[in-house]
C-alpha cells in the first residue's frame, strides 16, 4: 500500500490551488483565467480523491464526487468559453481588464 502520507497530497493540492488562484487573479487573458480555474478545480479533486483513501471512513464517495466535479468543470468550460466568444464579438478583446461593465 501507499506509504505517502496524506499531508503530501494535500500539500500538492495546496500548491496547485495557489498557482491557479494567482493565475485567475492576475492574468489578462480571459482564456487563461478560465484555464487557471480549471487548475484550481483539479487541486480540489486531488484533495477529494486523497480523502477518499485516507480518512476515518474510506470509501468511493470522494472519487464519485470527483467525477461530478469533472463533469461540472467540463460544462463550465464550455459555457465559459461560449460567453467569452459572445463577449469577443461585441468588443474585440479578451482582456479581462476591459470587461468592467459591472462598474456602470
Amino acid at each position, binding site marked *: 500500500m501507499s506509504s505517502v502520507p496524506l499531508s503530501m497530497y494535500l500539500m500538492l493540492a495546496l500548491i496547485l490551488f495557489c498557482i491557479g488562484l494567482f493565475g*485567475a*487573479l492576475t492574468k489578462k487573458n480571459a482564456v487563461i483565467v478560465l484555464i487557471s480555474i480549471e487548475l484550481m478545480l483539479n487541486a480540489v479533486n486531488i484533495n477529494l480523491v486523497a480523502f477518499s483513501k485516507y480518512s476515518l471512513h474510506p470509501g468511493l464517495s470522494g472519487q464519485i464526487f470527483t467525477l461530478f466535479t469533472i463533469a461540472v468543470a467540463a460544462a463550465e468550460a464550455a459555457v465559459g468559453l461560449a460567453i467569452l466568444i459572445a463577449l469577443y464579438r461585441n468588443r474585440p478583446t479578451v482582456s*479581462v*481588464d476591459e*470587461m*468592467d*461593465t*459591472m*462598474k456602470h
Partner: protein
Amino acid sequence: MLQNAWLIPLFPLLSFIVLTAFRRHTGRLAAVIGLAATGASLLMALMVFAEQWQGNSFKAEITWLEIGDKIITMGYEVNPLNALMLVIVTLVSFLVHLYSKGYMEGDSRISVFYAYLGLFTFAMLGLVLSPNLLQVYIFWELVGLGSFLLIGYYYFKPEAKAAAKKAFIMTRIGDVGLFIGIILLFWQTGSFEYDEIFKAVANQEISQTMITLTALLVFVGAIGKSGQLPLHTWLPDAMEGPTPVSALIHAATMVAAGVYLVASAFPLFEASQTALTTVAAVGGATAIFAASIGLMQKDIKRVLAYSTVSQLGYMMLALGSAGYTAGIFHLTTHAFFKALLFLAAGSVIHAVHTQNIEEMGGLWKKLRLTGPLFLIGALAISGFPLLSGFFSKDEILAAVYADGRYGLFVLALIAAFMTSFYMFRLFFMVFSGQPRSKQDGVHESGWTMTLPMIVLGVLAVVAGYVNTPWFGTFLNDYLAQGPVELAHEHHGPLWIPIAATTVSLLGILLAYLMYAKKSLSRDWLSRSFPSVSDIIYNKWFVDEAYEATFIKGTKAASCGGTLIDRYIVEGAAEGTVSAVQLLAKSGNKVQDGKVQTYGTVVILGLAVIFAVVALTGGYFS
C-alpha cells in the same frame, strides 16, 4: 388650638390659589380676599401664641417619603420661638396687605400682587412651622420664590428684572450651602429633625470638625437669605419691588429668616466655637460695612435697605456672641420699626413720586402723620432711650461684651453711631427744610395706609418692654421654655446702655448739624477724603468686583465651553465622519467593475480572517 396650627399657612395659600385661578375676575376683590386670608392667619397665630404662652408645645408629623429604611417626615411644630415668629409674620403681613390696598390702588395687576403676597406669606409661615431642616429648606426656597416674584412685579422694568434675577441667584448660592449642610447633617445623624440632630450633637456623636463644617454651611444659607457679607448685594437691589413688599419681605420677615435659621439651629452652632466666631465676625463686619454704605445713599429705600443689612448683621452678631435672646429680641423689634420705616417711606414716595432724597425736603408740614411716625421709627432704630430699639440693642451690646469679643463690641458701637447718623440724615433731608424740587398735590395717604403705620408705630415704641432689665425679662423667660435651652440673660455693666445712648445721640446731633441746621458742611467728607467717599458711595465696589470676577469668569467659561463644544466635540464627530468618508472613497476605488479586483479583495479578506483566527486562536477556543 395648637393642633390646628397647620391651618395658619394654608389661608394665604388658599388666597394665592384663588387669586391665581380667578385672576381675571377678582379685580378689586383681590385685596379683600388677601386681607381675609391673612386676617384669619393672624387670629389663629394669636390664639396659638396665647396657648403657647402657657407653656404648651406641639409637634405633629406625617410620612412624606420612605426611602429604604429611612422615613422622611413632614409636619409642624409649635415652640416658643416659632409661635413668636408666627405672630410677627402674620401681623406684619396683615398690615402690609392692608397698606397695599391703598398703595397699589389702580394697579391693573392687583390680584397678581395679592396672589404673590399670599404665596410669600404661606411660605414664610411654613418655614416658621417646620420641625425639620428639609422642610425648612423647602419653604426656604419658596420664600425666595415669593421674594423673587415680588421684586420682579414690575416685570417690564429692566432694573426690576435684573434685581429679581440677582436676588434669586445670590440667595441660591447661599441655599446650596444650606443644602450641603443639611445633607451632611443627615448622613451624620440619620435625620433631618431638629430634635434628633440636637440630640446627636449633645451626645457628641458627630466629630467636632463635622459640627463646625455643617454649622458653617447652614450659616452660608443664612448669609444668602439675610444679606450678610459677602452675599448682601441683592438686598439693596431688591428695592425695585413695590414698597410694601420691601417692608414685608426685605425688612421684617424673609431676610430675618436667616437669623431665625441660625437661632433654631442654635445648639449646633453652640457646639462649635469656630462657627460662633464666624457668625459673630460676619455679623459684625456686615453691620458696620452696610452702615457705612448707608451714609451716602441718595435713594430713600436703599438707605433703609442698607440699614436692614446692617441690623441683620447686628442680629447675627448677637447670635454669634451666644446672645440668643438678644438676637431674637432685636429681630422682633426690628421687624416692627423697620416695617414702619418702609411703610412710611412708601407713604412719602406715594406722596412725592420720587425716591431720591435730594429732591425731597420740607415734608414735615405736609405729611402730618407720616412724619412723626417716621421719626418714631428712626428714633427706635437709633436706639433712643425707652423705645424698642434701645432695649434690644442694649441687649445685643451686653451679649457681645459678655462674650468678650471687645473688637466686635467696638465695631457694634461704631455701627450704632452710623445708624443714628444716616437715619437722621434721611429724616432731616426728607422732612425738614424747604422742598428741593417741585412738589404738587402732596397729601397724606388714606386710612388703609396710615392705619398700619400707626399700629406699627405703637409697637415700635412698646415692643421693647417685653424684655427689659427693669420690668422683667418676659421674652427671655418665654424663650427659655423652648427646646433650645440656651436663652442666656446678659446683664452688662450699666455703662453700656449709657455709652450706646451717647453714641446714638451724637449721631443724631451730627446729622442735625449737617442736614437740618447746616452749620456743618454736608460734603466735608467727600472734600477731605475724596477717595474714601468715592468708595463708600459706590458701595465699596462689591458689585463691580463680582462683575469682574465671578460673572465675567462664568461667562468666559461658558463661551469657552461653547467653543469646545463646537470645535472639539463636534469637530471630533466631524473628523470621524470625514475619516469614514475617506475610507469609503478609497473603498470605492476597489469597485472598478473588474472581476479580478473583486476577487483579489475577497482573497485579501479571507487571508486577513485566516490570519486573525490563526494568530488569536479564535473566539471560542
